[in-house]
């Protein structure tokens, strides 16, 4: 169950490779956001026609989700054996 000291090093074990992945991902995000210029939108809701709506809505949603979940955790979190006591 425990790693041997001479275990093979994986590509992701190198912190710099993780950073490279993340920066590459930022670039992809920027591109997909910019593509919005070329996409015709047909929906009936005005909000959908704002520039990059899906992008910033997704971003704001997730940040709000996590921040609210942290507040929720303060209210509902108990010890692991709460119901066994």
């Amino acid at each position: 169950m425990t790693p041997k000291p001479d275990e093979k090093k994986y590509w992701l074990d190198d912190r710099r490779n993780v950073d490279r992945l993340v920066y590459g991902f930022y670039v992809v995000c920027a591109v997909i956001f910019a593509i919005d210029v070329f996409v015709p939108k047909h929906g009936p809701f005005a909000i959908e026609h704002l520039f990059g709506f899906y992008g910033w809505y997704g971003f704001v949603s997730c940040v709000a989700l996590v921040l609210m979940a942290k507040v929720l955790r303060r209210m509902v979190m108990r010890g692991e054996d709460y119901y066994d006591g």
Partner: protein
Amino acid sequence: MAEVSPGLILIVGALLVPFLRGRLCQVYLVALSMVAFLHLISLENGAGGQMSVLGLSLTMLRVDKLSSLFGYVFLIACFLATIYSLHLRDKIQHVSGLVYAGGALGAVFAGDLVTLFIFWEVTAIASVFLIFAARSHQAYRAGMRYILVQVGSGVLLLSGVLLHYRATGSLAFEHLGLVSPGTTLIFLGFGIKAAFPLLHSWLEDAYPEATVTGTVFLSAFSTKLAIYALARGYAGTELLVPIGAAMTAFPIFYAVIENDLRRVLAYSLNNQLGFMVVGIGVGTELALNGAVAHAFAHIIYKALLFMSMGAVLYRVGTIKGSELGGLYKSMPWTAVFCMVGAASISAFPLFSGFVAKSMIMSAAMKEGYLWTWLILMFASAGVFHHAGIKIPYFAFFAHDSGKRCAEAPANMLVAMALAAVLCIGIGVLPLWFMSILPFEVPYAVYTLDHVVGQMQLLLFSALAFAILMRTGIYPPELPSTNLDVDWFYRRLLLSWVNAAGRAYAAAFDALAGIAKGALGRLIGLLRDQYGPDGRVTRTQPAGAMVFWITALLGAALIVNFI
């Protein structure tokens, strides 16, 4: 044979399982769902298997596009879960898994409400053994709570059916609508099994306590049977739209902070049901197609996700996010299959979830449900966040927990691979998939605005995750219990029952004290009168008698003499 419900093939077939051993038993288990599947595709549309019981005419088999669709996917799920559990020597699990799947199929093909009720209860009773089979104290208690809720849902259903029958004289299971006390009770019975908000916590409570393989069975049938029943009986019921929207949103907050990764999946299951419920509530042909397509796709990718987490639990012995990480080194195939499931549930283009969810979103948009649409978008981003990223990330990547184990057993890998192929197949060939949906509505899945919009939504959700993770804002996985609605009956109600018990005991003691005192006094009184020294029963010496006789004789003599 032509009029036999495919469910009965599994239920009757399961009875033979205890008598088979080894390889033969494994072949038989796999063959059973295949035989039932072949039987299903040979059935023609229409009603069959009619019989008369106690003067009620029952229809065991009603085949149409809606019931067939659920029949197909239930049998696919049963097939996959059976392969996934082939390594087990535990006959209880094999039998209860098959009977459970058979019950769900029987209910889906039921043409009347009484048959529906009977199979409804079969699923409840058969499935609880998949929880008990974990053979732990927690599993036993969670199973008892689960069966109480499930049978309770059946009782509501039966009460509703009786009221409905008295009011209309009909037992047919067709569109019901919220029109009478009877149909309202039926709706509530369905609602419990569909895990409506506030009626949901049995799901998050029980599913993660079941066995590794049991949870895969559980994730497929009960709740989707309820979705089928709602689609059949309550399509277009406006109330379902806000109910479904609430269902998509609130479980994801819990999913973000939950540590048990199978419980995270249970919360996301609840959230996915919300999308289907919204689709049923919107009720247009496109929306209903979307709802049942989502049920179909969801059963497969949810099973895949539970299979991958089950494999981790099986190999590592824990499924707590706080203790896992770096497992891609030990279980690379499981990690890949898990990510296929994650991409499907997140509705990435070219994966199954995208096809189904797009239909529901488009239908809600078309009917002008702005707020519902915004909530569904929020929930979609949230699903990706907690199920799409969190599950694979904390199990297979994150910080290396140092845990090393073997890859999942071959049968588990085969089941996961098949499920993954289906997830991608539906995503890549949506037209083939859409041809089995109940309504013929032309719908273009892969339009430029759909694909770009969805990619923006998902990538920016991932961006939020990456930034929150790298800045340390993201809440860490912590060993914990998070209070949910089940607190009300596991703690509050329990404390009331305990308080009532104590009050009863105190009252009993007080009454018993009074009664004991009274009884003591009565005994004392009797003892005074009749005891060894009592006035009535006291023994007198013979001399005293002689004395008194002498005295009496003397007195008589004196009287005579005078």
